[in-house]
């Protein structure tokens, strides 16, 4: 039996208050009438209107979404491949180096990754722009995807795949029709993770972007350095709400998928 004491209740209350109050203040003050961000002067949505008029922010948002979409898609493909190799391919030459390269970017300080990629792009003489940010984001996001997919691959029963191979599937068919549906929830959450990591990244994007490809975090960072503004509060609120809706719906979907999978299994057992 687990006991839930007053101590646990207070630590949870204070902990979650600490986690959520700052964001709540941000959201509340984005509806502030006054330009002075710390003085409440009545409810207003005018800063959202002004944000929508701000071409620079809209352009940056569009660039960010494009970069996030392409890099997360590429990262999901590469990361799933990498996870599959790590779990199923057995021994191959250079496996140690490969697993090192998969895990290293997870803990590498962003400034180092950004600096090294920029120096690389200059050395091979690629113009910096959307393409270079996509390449950079793909590289670090694929490692996160592969960690997520690996944990799913490890936990499921290898014999299903072997059965498909015995029944005459080609390895690719076996992967597509047996393995992929089973690891799909992990692949989707890997994609979502890669997408948010890319949306969020400031440091690597600053190093690898060119003058014509400013992403939203770069824009926000340069605005924020000058202090708090109501437009940024409004923008932050939109981003927080989008992420909240995304995460909650993703978790509901994966929960219902899990329930459905369990029901299917039970049905299969009964037959």
């Amino acid at each position: 039996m687990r006991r839930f004491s007053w101590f646990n209740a207070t630590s949870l209350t204070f902990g979650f208050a600490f986690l959520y109050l700052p964001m709540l203040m941000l959201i509340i003050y984005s509806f502030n009438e006054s330009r002075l961000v710390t003085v409440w002067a009545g409810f207003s949505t005018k800063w959202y209107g002004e944000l929508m008029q701000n071409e620079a922010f809209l352009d940056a948002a569009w660039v960010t979404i494009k970069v996030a979409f392409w890099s997360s898609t590429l990262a999901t493909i590469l990361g799933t491949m990498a996870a599959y190799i790590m779990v199923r391919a057995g021994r191959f030459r250079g496996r140690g180096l490969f697993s090192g390269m998969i895990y290293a970017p997870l803990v590498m300080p962003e400034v180092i990754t950004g600096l090294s990629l920029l120096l690389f792009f200059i050395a091979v003489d690629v113009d910096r722009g959307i393409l270079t940010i996509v390449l950079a984001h793909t590289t670090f996001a694929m490692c996160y995807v592969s960690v997520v997919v690996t944990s799913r691959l490890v936990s499921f029963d290898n014999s299903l795949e072997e059965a498909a191979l015995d029944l005459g599937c080609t390895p690719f068919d076996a992967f597509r029709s047996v393995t992929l549906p089973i690891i799909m929830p992990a692949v989707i959450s890997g994609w979502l993770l890669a997408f948010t990591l890319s949306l969020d990244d400031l440091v690597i994007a600053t190093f690898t972007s060119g003058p014509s490809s400013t992403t939203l975090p770069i824009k926000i960072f340069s605005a924020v350095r000058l202090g708090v503004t109501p437009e940024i509060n409004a923008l932050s609120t939109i981003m927080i709400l989008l992420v909240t809706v995304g995460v909650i719906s993703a978790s509901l979907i994966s929960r219902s998928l899990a329930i459905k999978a369990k029901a299917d299994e039970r049905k299969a057992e009964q037959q």
Partner: protein
Amino acid sequence: MKFGRTLLVAIPYTWLLVFFLIPFGIVLKISFSDIALAIPPYTPTLKDGFWQMLSGLDLENYAFIGAGAVFAVFAVLVISVAMFQIVYPRVRRALIPDARYGVFDSAAAALTTLAVALVNVALIVALVSFLFPVLKSFVDIPDFLYFAAYLSSLKIAIISTFLTLLIGYPIAYGMARAAEHWRPTLLMLVILPFWTSFLIRVYAWIGILSTEGYLNQLLLSIGIISEPLAILNTPVAVYIGIVYTYLPFMVLPIYAALEKMDDSLVEAAEDLGCTTLSAFWLVTAPLSKPGVIAGCFLVFIPTLGEFVIPSLLGGSNTVMIGKVLWEEFFNNRDWPVASAVAVILLLILIIPIVLFQRNQEEAEQ
């Protein structure tokens, strides 16, 4: 089949080689070259053969940032912490004989565990502050900025990891003790901030901590303070920012360890006469140790190279190595020195990264 497998391995492998390993090679190469007023602003030194390369390596950048002194300090730190870890089990054993679990023993267990953590932190912070002036007067380093930046990053990373542990452990413990049907929701509430933009979460604190911010308004209106506190642009703001943004990284591994734990162990301890507190220190705390260690590394490693938090919340008073690297690169355009700074940061991080991986492997077994 054979060909397909080779292709499958080759694609991500080549990608990582090209976009991860080769860029590091380039950083290493540029760190050994001279600054030049050109585009790109460095003169390559490695275009001849391997032997010429070795003899012609330009260590100027490393000497300039005081790499030797940084490593000397780091070596002293690692050795003294290691020594302390050897001494500590003996002290603990002397203080808590295994046979009795009374009130006194649980207090002793609590005190020694806390003392270990505190002494470790204090030891490192004291060494850092003590070694700095000593080295400054004995060693000739052209620019002490870098050396100071490494040490202050180390200090900030260690103190904030400790603070995150102090705040994160009770949250994880509360979550693991909560009713079963509540746990997924609580877990979601911890994960949600992790998905929200890092930049926005740091930004949120500017409005709270600034001189006319919400915190000062609140404290002034209650009457606790009569003049606004200057928190923004001080190291305190950096600690708050780090604890806030990295809290989920601490809570999640500790929660995972506590959730797996068998409750009957605690019950058994209590049946055998332990108080609640001594059962916690003698059963729960040791069993959650892998989670605590993982959480500490997950906070410590990225904090050491942190850029966003010190530059938004720390002002010009807080020097951290990530910020120095950034400024060296974008403002001074000294690429060779920036590369040397990056190489040394990486060498320093190798020890905690290796220790972290070993801890993960042990936890899996």
